[in-house]
Every structure is written in C-alpha cells, then in structure tokens.
C-alpha cells in the first residue's frame, strides 16, 4: 500500500459518514418542508394560495430538473419543455383512453418519457454547447408539431378536451382540491429530495467534472456519453412529473406545454434563481410565479415588466438571486471572522 492509498483509506470513511449525515439532514429538511406545506390548508382558506403551490410544484420540478442539466452538467438544453409536454399529454391520454388507476398511469407516463428521452438524448448528448442547445430545440419543435398535426390523438391545437378523469386510489381523490394539493406537494418534495441525492452522489460530482472539463473526465476513465445520457433521461423524468402535475391542475393538456416558450421559461427561472445552488431554481420558480401573478393583476403590459426584471438580473446582478445571496452571506461571514 502506497502512502497515498493509505491516506485515502483513512479519509474515505470520514467522507462517507459526512455524506451519510448530510443525507439525513436533507431527508429531515424535506420532511419538515412537507409538514409545513401539508398543514397550510388548515391554516388558510385561500384556494389561490393552494393553486399557487400546485403550480410551483409543477414548474419547480421542471426548472430544478433543467438545472441538473444546465448548472450541474453544463448541458444548456433549449428543448427541456418537450418532456413537460410529454408528461402532460402522456398522462392525460392514458387517463382519458384507458381508465387505468392513477398510479399506473403515472408510472406508464414515466416509462414512455424514459423511452423517448433515451432516443432523443442518445442523439443530442454527443453534441456540444450551441449544437446541443439547437438540436434539443429542434426535437422540441418536432414533438410540438406532432402534437399539433396528430389531431385524432391529441386534439391538435385545441388540446386534450373533456377533462382528465381521476378515479380515487388508496383514499386519494385527485378531483378534491386539497388532495390534489397534498399530492403535488408530496411529488415536489420527493422529486427535490431525489434530485438532491443525485446532485450530491458521486455521480453528481462526475457531472460537475464533465461540466468543468469533459476531456479530463474521459481521460480518467469516465464514459462521458453515458453519464450525460443518464442525467438527460433522469432530468426528463422529473420534468415529465412536473407536466403531470400541470395536466392535473388544468385538467387537460395543451400544445403550449410542449412549445419552446416553456423551455424558455425554465431557462429564465434558472437565471432568476441562480444555477450554482441546488435550491436556486425553486426560488426562481416562486419569484417568477409571484411576479407573473402580481403583474398580470396590475397591468396588461406584462412583457415590459418582465423584460426589465430580466435586464436587472442579467446586467445588474449578473447572477441569479440565490447565487447572489450565497456569495453575500459567505462574504459577510468571512468579513466578521477576521
């Protein structure tokens, strides 16, 4: 045993116990967050607040999964919205046509998403930077066009009509507003927890390495293509879950869910919240939705206000809100330590 190996052997258990501890901490935080969200309906009678949290769950899962690609792997996908749309349409169609129980339809939708994401990902992740961005965008437009033109299946540009049936399962009745709310919160918290585990796992660190220097990563024996494809498919699954929540919320699916503007919104949420911290996109989601709801309430010139906010973040802060807060906090702590 060389000196280096001996040193590593000593260090390993310590790191392992540390990661074990941080995992417990994450689970505790998740449980606490879920508990707070779950008692919310008892504290307030505001249905709008519950609606807000349901939409946050849908977009939060979508944006955080996009950040797994953008922030952690350096894959700037412009077509992530296709999986959001795929989730909404897949779930809506299965429920409308087959009458399967909700959990089965949920799993089936994820299986379909996995298959499609694997095929699309296998083609896209070979490409770099702008080429990757544009080929994902092209696939998104392909899926969007398919939804538009396959009228007999998808209803074309009118969307899935007639509502999504939702038979009760295990005592959960998703046509009940509070049940839908709790289910969305549970999906959000579980989704975030799983994504956190992915980000903190050795695989997550491999992704960061690929982002920083893919050539070096491949030299030390990492199959870069496989790692990128894996995270592409995983991110698609979480985006798809977001789409399912959205389909349940509006009780339908519309071509806009698979349009590039949804991907753009995801990118914007990430810019707003910041890509270097795990919860950045979640913060961005809450910010964007609050912004959206208050601005549309006050004025019809939503675009101008949003544009100014984008400029403020892009030129003024030059980073997302969470990045800014984390840096500010670190600076303050260092400052007071001296």
């Amino acid at each position, binding site marked *: 045993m060389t000196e280096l190996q001996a040193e590593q052997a000593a260090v390993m258990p310590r790191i392992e116990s540390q990661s074990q501890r941080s995992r417990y901490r994450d689970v505790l935080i998740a449980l606490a967050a879920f508990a707070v969200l779950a008692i919310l309906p008892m504290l307030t009678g505001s249905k709008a607040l519950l*609606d807000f949290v349901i939409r946050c769950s849908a977009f939060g899962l979508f944006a955080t999964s996009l950040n797994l690609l953008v922030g952690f792997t350096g894959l700037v996908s412009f077509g992530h919205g296709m999986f959001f749309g795929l989730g909404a349409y897949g779930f809506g169609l299965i429920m409308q046509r087959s009458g399967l129980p909700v959990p089965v339809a949920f799993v089936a939708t994820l299986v379909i998403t996995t298959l499609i994401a694997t095929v699309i990902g296998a083609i896209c992740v070979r490409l770099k930077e702008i080429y990757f961005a544009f080929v994902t965008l092209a696939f998104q437009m392909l899926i969007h066009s398919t939804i538009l033109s396959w009228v007999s299946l998808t209803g*074309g540009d*009118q*969307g899935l009509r*007639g509502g999504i049936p939702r038979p009760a399962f295990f005592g959960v009745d998703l046509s009940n507003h509070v049940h839908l709310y709790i289910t969305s919160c549970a999906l959000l918290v579980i989704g975030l927890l799983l994504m956190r585990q992915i980000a903190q796992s050795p695989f997550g660190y491999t992704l960061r390495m690929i982002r920083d220097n893919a050539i070096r990563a491949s030299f030390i024996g990492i199959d870069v293509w496989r790692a990128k494809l894996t995270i592409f498919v995983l991110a698609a699954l979480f985006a798809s879950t977001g789409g399912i929540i959205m389909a349940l919320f509006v009780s*339908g699916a519309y071509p806009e869910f698979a349009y590039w503007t949804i991907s753009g919104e995801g990118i914007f949420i990430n810019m707003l919240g910041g890509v270097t911290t795990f919860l950045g996109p979640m913060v961005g989601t809450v910010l964007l939705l609050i912004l959206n709801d208050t601005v*549309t309430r006050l004025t019809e*010139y*939503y675009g101008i206000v949003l544009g100014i906010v984008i400029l403020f973040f892009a030129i003024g802060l030059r980073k997302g809100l969470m990045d800014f807060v984390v840096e500010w906090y670190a600076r303050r702590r260092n400052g007071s330590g001296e």
Partner: protein
Amino acid sequence: MTRTRKPGVSRRTTLAMMGAGAVTFATPWVARAQAKTIKVGMPTILSGRVAQLGTSSRNGVMLEIEKVNAAGGLAGRQIEMVIRDSKGQPQEAARVARELVNTDGCEILIDAEASSGAFAVHEVARDLGVLCLHTNSETSALTADPKQHIPNAFRTARQGVHDSIVGGSYAAAIAKAKGLKRWATCSPDYAYGRDTTGEYVTYLKRFAPDTEIISESWPKLFQPDYTEVVTKILQAKPQALYSCLWGGDLTSYIDQANIYALFSQMEVFAVNMADYTALTVVKNLPKGIHSGNRYIKTYPATPENAAWGDAYKAKYNEYPTNWSWENATAIMLLAEASKKANSADGKKIAEALRGLKIKSPFGADGTVTMRAEDQTLVGYAIGWGTTIPQEPYVPQVQAGDWKTIFELEAEWKKSKGYT
C-alpha cells in the same frame, strides 16, 4: 441648548394612529358597499399577436355593462368587471379564471378566450361550478359534444358549423349559376382552418355535387409571405377559391394576391372578409369578394344595429369586431336572465338563461335565443354578400336560413355521434 425629544407620543405619531384608526373603522363600510356589487371575471388575451381579440371583446363588454349598471345592475347589484390577460396560454387562462373566482370573489365568468383557452376555462367552470359564458370560441365541439356539456356553461358566440352550412349553400348557388366547377382552398394550417374548410367543402359538394377541389394550400398561421401560395393557386387555374384566413393574415394575403391580379381571375369566397378589422386595413379592397358577415353595422340593416355600431365607434374610435358583438350579447343575455330570475345568483341566472330569447341588434329577426338543449346561441344574423371598396363595404347581404341551418346541424350532430 439642545432640544431633546419629549417622551410620549409625538404629534406625527398621533396623526398616523388616528389615520390608521379611521381606516380600520371605515373598512367594514367599504366592504359592505363592495358586497352589494357583483364581480364578473373575464380572462382574455390582451397581449401578443391576437391582443385585438381581448381589447375588442373588452370594449363590447364595457359598452353594455355601462347600460346595465345605469339601469340598476343585476337584481340591484352593480356589476364590477375584473378583466385579466391570459397572454394566450391555456394554463394561464385556467389559472387566471380560478384566481378570479377563488381570490377576487367573482361570481360569474365571461370567458373571452380563443379556442384552446376556452376549453381550459371550461374545465375550471366544471370544477368550480361557477356560471360561465363562453364568448369567443366558435369551435362547434365546445357545446355540440355532449361530453363537454355542463349545466353552468353557455356560449354566446357563433358556431363553426352554422357558418359552414350557410357558406356552403350560398357558394353552391353561385357555383350553379356561374358554372364554377373547379375549386381551390387556401386556409391557415391549424384546427380552425382545417375544420372550417372541411365542413365548408362538405356542404358545398352537398348542394352542388359536380364541384371538385383541385388544389389545397395550407399556409402557416401568421405567415408573412404568401407568394408561393398565390402562384400555386394561379397555376392550378381554379374557377373559384375558398379561404378562411382571418385578420392580419387575410389582409396581407389580399395585398400580395392583388399584385398578381388573382381576384380578377376567379371568384373568391373569404368567410372572414366582412369584418372591419380586415375591410379597413386592406389597401385596395377588390370588388366582388364573397364573404360571410362577421360584424358590420349595415347587416342586419336595422336602426338598432347601426346605432350600436356608431355608439361603439364614438366611444372607442374604431369599429366593433366580430368578438365585440359576441361579448356584448353575453352581457345582454346576463342582464335579461337576471331580470327574469329576479336574482344575481349564478344558478338562478343559468336556469333563466336556458331557452331565453332576447331582443338584440345582432339577431336575424331582431332576436337571439340561448338554445336550451346545448346552451349555445342561435338566431343571430348570418349571411353572405360581396364586397365593394368603400363603405358600406358589403352592401347586400343574403341572409342564411335558420330553418335549413337547424336541419343540417341536427344531421351533422348525428354524423359526429353527438346525438
């Protein structure tokens, strides 16, 4: 000498506290005054390419709301409109509609959304059970399909299938008279364009069986350049052309086709031509384009309709659109139903709306009816005529026959499996 602040409450704080106190005590009064008003929510599209849909709908609504409020409101309650932009996104339309009901306390919804948004709002109405009047979606399935039917949703707009029946029979009559056998179509490539064209052709062939379609063009929605479409049609040498392009697409199509003198080479049937948004924008409006009426103040040729169009023009400095009359009709029906039910309660109004016939400037015979069986508007003025380049643009409109419409509509419903 230094002056320090006296302990205790300063004058400024006292004033502030008095102000706060006054507000606190006054709030219940304000709230009580508000409870007397009835809020009506209206999600619509106020930004983006089809913002005109929202603004002209809003104008139509507000014009009527003023009259209703001046006459005492809904069963003594003044109407307060809460109008929000959905940006043309269905999920936003659903969100805004829910918020209007759940947070803003709206008791009635006017759904002034384009088709996909209308279906999203329809689901919200199904979920919340709130009275909802669809004012812009002309997609037949919204009310014709029994799966869509809910007791609290009504449509106060035209219906695609009505337009196709009238258009088809009008075109067939001219085709027979002028011997037009070879037809071409040119319509926007989305559900409205494809469905409307398909239904139109069905009825054209039904009334004039020896016509055939020799060329079809499907330009993209909002396509800027129509050169290839125009040349394709010219090469096919049809005797007649049908199009359901609308708004800006129709006007740029006509401007570009004018260069090739397309309109002198064939009879053109453009269902959406006779709307001021198209008529007033085209640079050289060709003479003799056949068009269905959308909204023009000269058809129906009644003083009531002319007065309504002029009042709108005087208030908003532009002519009403097809959407304006559809939305105005919603408010007229609402007011009348509330009077009949003597209540502002959504359920009672819905009960009174079923089968309600009201006087209307937009009626074929001076009245329109909310048909009870599928809760959609019938009896509105519907007809076709030919254009001239200046006002009144479409001088003679040939009225569609509602008896025929009802017969063929029933047949169509059966063929779709709706009845």
